[in-house]
């Protein structure tokens, strides 16, 4: 039994951290947000081959598994990087397609190594519920999928349609008049969302996932959001400890007040628990352990709530300065609040846990 990361994992983490500092520092992220153009980060993700982390080498990926992917998302969270493209693309579309025989290759071929394939589901619900409001007839899809993560800018949409006990996966190219994507702005401006309207859109059915496979695929997405929230929380705590150590009130550093120390300590308690949950879930999903999906739900529910609690503690401990646009805390704060709801609220995952626990 070994919980720790191995040396390669630590090197990977350090490499990602350094690259993010260099290529996606907070000053850059602010510039991208001000220009309402996150594409420089997409290029950075491609340039560093992050899209391929956790994707098998034979599929053109960088290898590694869920643990490496989770490590990357923790770093993305620490940097509050515009990680949507990695979540909706590599985590989402590829994560779904890879579970079909030949699905990932097909997706790669269609995308031709260029565009971005995005998982086309309402981002406020677990992804394995699929796109509920879409009908299909004669190979053409019609309906609206609201709040699709990274829909603006995607070249292809992977639409999972509920069918019996599972999901049919349809690939729909964007660009034609039969696909309309209306961007939606969020208070977290480091994420792109859009409402997708399909009007007799031509699609290709690339296969079918049964319920278990769909749950597995969603569990990875839940895990990655949890890992990102863990990274957000760690960074917010670091920022806070640093700030209260410097800020002087009543002649002493704010950090020397017991109530301040206790709030920081409680945040750390939250964070270390979230860490345990995130990395066990990553390992269990990677190894196909029977309890992997349940633990991904646990990680999602807890880590996103822990990050929100940390965000509020950080705001309180920063005092008024943290409440300003100029202070970087707001970037992390907003992402933490968004991640709480992203791909399923804590409540929705707790309801699933209760189902598994067979309480009646």
């Amino acid at each position, binding site marked *: 039994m070994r919980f720790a990361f191995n040396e390669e994992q630590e090197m990977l983490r350090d490499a990602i951290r350094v690259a993010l500092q260099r290529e996606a520092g907070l000053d850059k992220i602010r510039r991208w947000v001000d220009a309402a153009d996150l594409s420089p980060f997409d290029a950075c993700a491609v340039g560093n081959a992050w899209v391929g982390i956790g994707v098998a080498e034979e599929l053109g990926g960088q290898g590694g598994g869920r643990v490496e992917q989770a490590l990357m998302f923790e770093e993305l969270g620490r940097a509050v990087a515009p990680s949507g493209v990695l979540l909706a693309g590599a985590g989402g579309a590829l994560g779904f397609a890879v579970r079909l025989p030949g699905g990932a290759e097909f997706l790669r071929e269609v995308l031709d190594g260029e565009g971005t394939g995005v998982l086309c589901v309402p981002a406020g619900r677990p992804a394995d519920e699929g796109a509920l409001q879409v009908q299909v007839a004669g190979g053409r899809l019609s309906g609206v999928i609201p709040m699709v993560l990274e829909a603006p800018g995607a070249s292809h949409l992977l639409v999972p349609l509920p069918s019996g006990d599972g999901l049919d996966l349809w690939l729909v190219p964007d660009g034609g008049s039969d696909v309309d994507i209306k961007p*939606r702005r*969020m208070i977290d401006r480091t994420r792109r969302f859009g409402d997708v309207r399909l009007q007799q859109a031509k699609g290709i059915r690339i296969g079918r996932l049964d319920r278990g496979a769909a749950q597995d695929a969603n569990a990875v997405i839940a895990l990655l959001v949890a890992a990102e929230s863990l990274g957000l929380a760690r960074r917010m705590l670091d920022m806070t400890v640093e700030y209260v150590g410097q800020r002087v009130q009543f002649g002493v550093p704010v950090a020397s007040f*017991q*109530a301040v120390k206790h709030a920081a300590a409680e945040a750390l308690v939250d964070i270390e628990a979230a860490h345990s949950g995130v990395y066990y879930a990553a390992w269990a999903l990677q190894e196909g352990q029977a309890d992997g999906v349940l633990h991904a739900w646990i990680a999602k529910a807890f880590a996103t709530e822990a990050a929100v609690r940390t965000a509020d503690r950080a705001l309180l401990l920063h*005092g*008024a300065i943290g409440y300003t646009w100029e202070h970087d805390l707001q970037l992390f704060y907003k992402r933490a609040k968004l991640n709480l*709801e992203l791909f399923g609220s804590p409540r929705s995952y707790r309801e699933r846990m209760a189902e598994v626990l067979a309480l009646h």
Partner: protein
Amino acid sequence: MDFRDAAEDAAFRETVRAWLESEVPRLGPAPDKLEERVEWWRPWQRRLYEAGYAGLAWPREYGGRGASVLQQAIFYEECDRAGAPDRLDVIGAGFAGPTLIEHGTAAQKTRFLDRILTGEDLWCQLFSEPGAGSDLAALATRATPDGDGWRIDGQKVWTSAAQVAEYAILLARTGEGERHRGISFFILPMRQPGVDVRPLRQMLGGAEFNEVFLDGAHVPGDLLVGQLGGGWKVAMSTLGYERAAIATGRVNTLRLLDELIALVRDTRGADGLPLGQDAFVRQRLAELYTRMTLQRLTGKRILSTLAEGGAPGPEASTAKLFTTPLVEEICDFALSVIGIEGQEEPADMDPARAKWLRLAYQARGTSIAGGTTFIQRNILAERVLGMPRD
């Protein structure tokens, strides 16, 4: 113990209600931008003034109504009910005016008080500084003698409405001693070259507050309030008025709960059933309803004590600590009902929904402003429970 209006209060309520019912509907919609809203608000304030509803709390000799605390509360309850405009003169009529009435010279009273009530002059408060937040006595802005008055140099922050204010109440160091001993209280004319107001964007993007840079700003000799070096005592009066205003509360939690209930009624759960059937939602809502009720009842207790001329009891010190997390939790719960769509840019949202997000953030601001939760708890423990200082 009787929670009904006494006969004369009931009559006052009737009169106010009738007046508001005839006046409020004649108002057009409030502009979003503060500068425009001020111009829209001034005629309304003038009507309040003419009808005798400006300066409710002020003595009659200074143009006020000398209304009882209970009648003040009735007036604002009826304003809420009628949807009357938000007050823009809180600092002038609420804090600066009463401070001048208590500590100002006759000339200062003559010059400033009436124009506050008519809405001609708006005021702002220049107390907080970047290095002096909760620890106000650490302020560093300097006032140095300059001709017949003072020259002011320094930086203030978290100033609301500075861009529309004609005057400010200002704390600056005149150097008689360390910390609170060396501070004087001034009236600063805001429309002059040495005063530079820069909006401070808050985290949601709007500019509720400003930074104010004072670089050779001039205060004439007759605008010192109280003694030279005696500003701390004057400021404590001001902060007392501010605390009372915060304690009696301006967030209408009853209305929030009504809106939250309406939101739940309009929502279905993931299982397609009405969300209001969900036992978790029912428990949570009932709990928030409980706390809202207690918050309002505590408000009545405070009023009742003030109305009898008593010093506010322990309940007054607990009110903010009780209210702040309540408002946050009401908003957070509403946002969880709305789901991810509650995190949209508020300018793009249905206003009834955008409100929850804005208020969720504002509530966090409130828990920082006017003494953080930590400071409030210290005060409560030391002053009410008699526990020793750290």
